[in-house]
């Protein structure tokens, strides 16, 4: 193998791919990135056996071939090379080393054979559809914060993506929950999504997709079947295994009969929650909302450090209620509302509350109360 390419192009591709590689690996080759020079392209591939990323960069290929080298080391080298530099990669004979040259810098990197590199991309994926980066970002941003980290309930460790019929229209829905809060967001199902299986996209893949959307604003092609999903961002392809489990029937979690409606300006509400919760200890962070006619008093009582309260105006005319929430969770949800006015549908201090935009936007959040 012998190939030359621009440092910028290599860095961009490596930047996307090397993040997949775990810092600690028991299987040596998983620390490596596969590099393959073929037909005017250099293709890079990294995997942790659950998630795989590949990206290509234009290159001047003098001799085709492939090998694997330590991903983080390669990334650090390329990152530290001067801007605008040319990088040449060359297999240096018998000893199984890759020679990297740029300007007057030379690096010899230990290689492992490309034939040993694991391959995730096998089999056909049954469904294929496209989403704008804005839509995909919305699906992820609105739900990602609610993903559980609890290993015992592994089936909650991702975003549940599925198509369902709402008022006669097919909707693509993303749902995530950790048991304390649930986030649900939907948008009209794109062409090709109908009939797709419900899949749980694991947290790590979700995080990578989120970072890739930041970098590349373009249409994303999604292909999936029951066990795997592939996200194509132009040159970058992310393939992930899906969580093999059943997502709980979240429909029965969303209360249908919460008749106490509270309307509040989001910004002042979030600010007040943030201010008042300063006094609460790190753990628990319970904040009490005392809601009465036209006003809400937010209060925190922390035996160790003192107490705080603040009153804000709200639009509320049902029976007075006192209810506690985790302040952090309230702020997370407030941060995901898209309009300026929030609607809270309450039932009683022991039952889940619904939070959404007043004008009924695509996202809906359910929050368990805390006892205060």
């Amino acid at each position, binding site marked *: 193998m012998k190939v030359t390419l621009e440092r910028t192009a290599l860095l961009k591709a490596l930047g996307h791919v090397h993040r997949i590689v775990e810092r600690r690996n028991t299987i040596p080759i998983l620390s490596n990135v596969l590099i393959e020079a073929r037909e005017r392209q250099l293709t890079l591939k990294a995997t942790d056996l659950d998630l795989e990323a590949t990206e290509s960069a234009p290159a001047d290929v003098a001799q085709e071939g492939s090998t694997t080298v330590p991903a983080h080391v390669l990334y650090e080298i390329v990152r530290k090379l001067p801007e605008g530099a040319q990088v040449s990669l060359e297999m240096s004979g018998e000893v199984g080393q890759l020679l990297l040259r740029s300007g007057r810098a030379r690096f010899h990197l230990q290689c492992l054979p490309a034939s040993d590199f694991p391959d995730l991309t096998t089999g056909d994926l049954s469904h294929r559809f496209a989403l704008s980066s804005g839509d995909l970002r919305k699906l992820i941003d609105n739900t990602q914060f609610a993903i559980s*980290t*609890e*290993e*015992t309930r592994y089936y*909650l460790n991702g975003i549940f993506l599925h198509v369902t019929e709402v008022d006669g229209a097919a909707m693509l829905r993303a749902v995530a*929950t950790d*048991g*304390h809060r649930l986030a649900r967001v939907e948008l009209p199902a794109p062409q090709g999504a109908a009939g797709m299986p419900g899949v749980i996209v694991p947290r790590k893949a979700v995080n990578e997709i989120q970072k890739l959307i930041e970098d590349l604003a373009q249409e994303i092609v999604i292909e999936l079947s029951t066990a795997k999903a592939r996200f194509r961002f132009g040159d970058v392809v992310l393939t992930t295994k899906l969580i093999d489990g059943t997502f709980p029937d979240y429909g*029965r979690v969303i209360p249908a009969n919460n008749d106490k409606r509270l309307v509040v300006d989001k910004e002042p509400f979030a600010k007040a929650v943030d201010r008042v919760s300063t006094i609460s200890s790190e753990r628990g962070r319970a904040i009490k909302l005392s809601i009465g006619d036209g006003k809400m008093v937010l209060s925190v009582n922390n035996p160790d450090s003192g107490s705080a309260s603040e009153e804000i105006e709200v639009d509320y005319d049902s029976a007075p209620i006192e209810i506690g929430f985790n302040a952090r969770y309230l702020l997370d949800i407030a941060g995901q509302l898209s309009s300026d006015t929030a609607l809270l549908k309450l039932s009683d201090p022991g039952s889940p509350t619904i939070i959404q935009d007043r004008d009924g936007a695509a996202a809906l959040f359910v929050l368990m109360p805390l*006892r205060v």
Partner: protein
Amino acid sequence: MISHGAEGARVVLCRDCLVESPGGDSSRCALCGSPRLVAYPHGNALTIAHIDCDAFYASIEKRDNPTLWDRPLIVGGGRRGVVSTCCYVARTFGVRSAMPMFQALKLCPEAVVIGPDMAKYVRVGRQIRSLMQDLTPLVEPISIDEAFLDLTGCEGVHGAGAPLTLARLARKIESEIGLTVSIGLSDCKFLAKLASDLDKPRGYTIVERVQAMALLAPMPVSRIWGVGKVAQTRLNNAGLRLIGDIQALDETTMFARHGAEGGRLWRLARGIDKRRVTPERETKSISSETTFDVDTADKEHLTRTLLVMCERVAARLKKQQLACKSVTLKLRTADFKLRTRARSGFEPTQLATRLFLVARSLLEKELDGARFRLLGVSTADFAAAEGADQGDLVDKDIGRERAREDAIDSLREKFGASAVVRGLAFKATTPKRP
């Protein structure tokens, strides 16, 4: 008796007639002629006691079955079993606790072996503990049959100093419970524990401050609290065989050679021990484990045992009003390799089924054909039971699970532990065919 040579007026206490009299040279009590005397300086300042029951399990069995009185008795069990306790008759044959059963029976073939009845021992242990707690609130149990007592400032209440109060306690335990104890009295925990061991059984030893150095000097370093086999070898290799060898060094040298641990050893070697008698220790973990009669790789057997242990642990969690946030599975393979696997980060729970779900998922990953001799489950990282197992958005069934477990618990309370057995833990005995 080791209390000779100290200056000042001395008092002699007869442990049979419980009378204190001015010290004479007589080796027998002037009133009853008993040789069971202890002597200490007038105005005794020693108030930390260690009380240890003599051959506890064996003594209880002998008490309850007098025909065993003069026979060598071993309490312990199972084919894999070890001797938990042996009576003093058996000890004359060389039988010791923690000795493998086959070896014990080789030494003493005529020994009577009885399987342990832990429930009974716990009951008796509690009775003894409550007698101790009548004397002072500062009772620190170390195990089922031994405890530290701090009698500082209790003279007024008992109308007697610590030595007489303890002698009365020993008498009371003998007459009311029918067991003998050995007592060590000194001014710190280390010396008190050491003292109780000097004159067993039915002993009473007082170690005064002035005697401490001389008493400790000829003892092997392994007598120091916390020095086990490994530490002993290490110290021996460093030329420290006797406690006196440590006494001969200065503190800085010990510290320099053995670190903070060296400092601790140096102080203990001189009988300096600042630890207080603390009645309650915070529970850090609750666990249950079992050694199988035969090594097993059988998934069903392991799972069944695991469930039973989870239930046991859950029962103790409930009793102590604790909920745990981490579970550790412990496995020892046939070749004595230890595997522990832990999981944490779940919602606090005290329900057996919850513990079992976590423990089982850990166990299933370890079933690689290896044969195991020991299985254990341990819980830690405790939170208050209040607020645990309330369920959340996803977990709607926990209320029913809780009610179910409460019902099982109350049935077991009423009709015994085997009244209700979970299906998974139930092993049907094959019905005999006619």
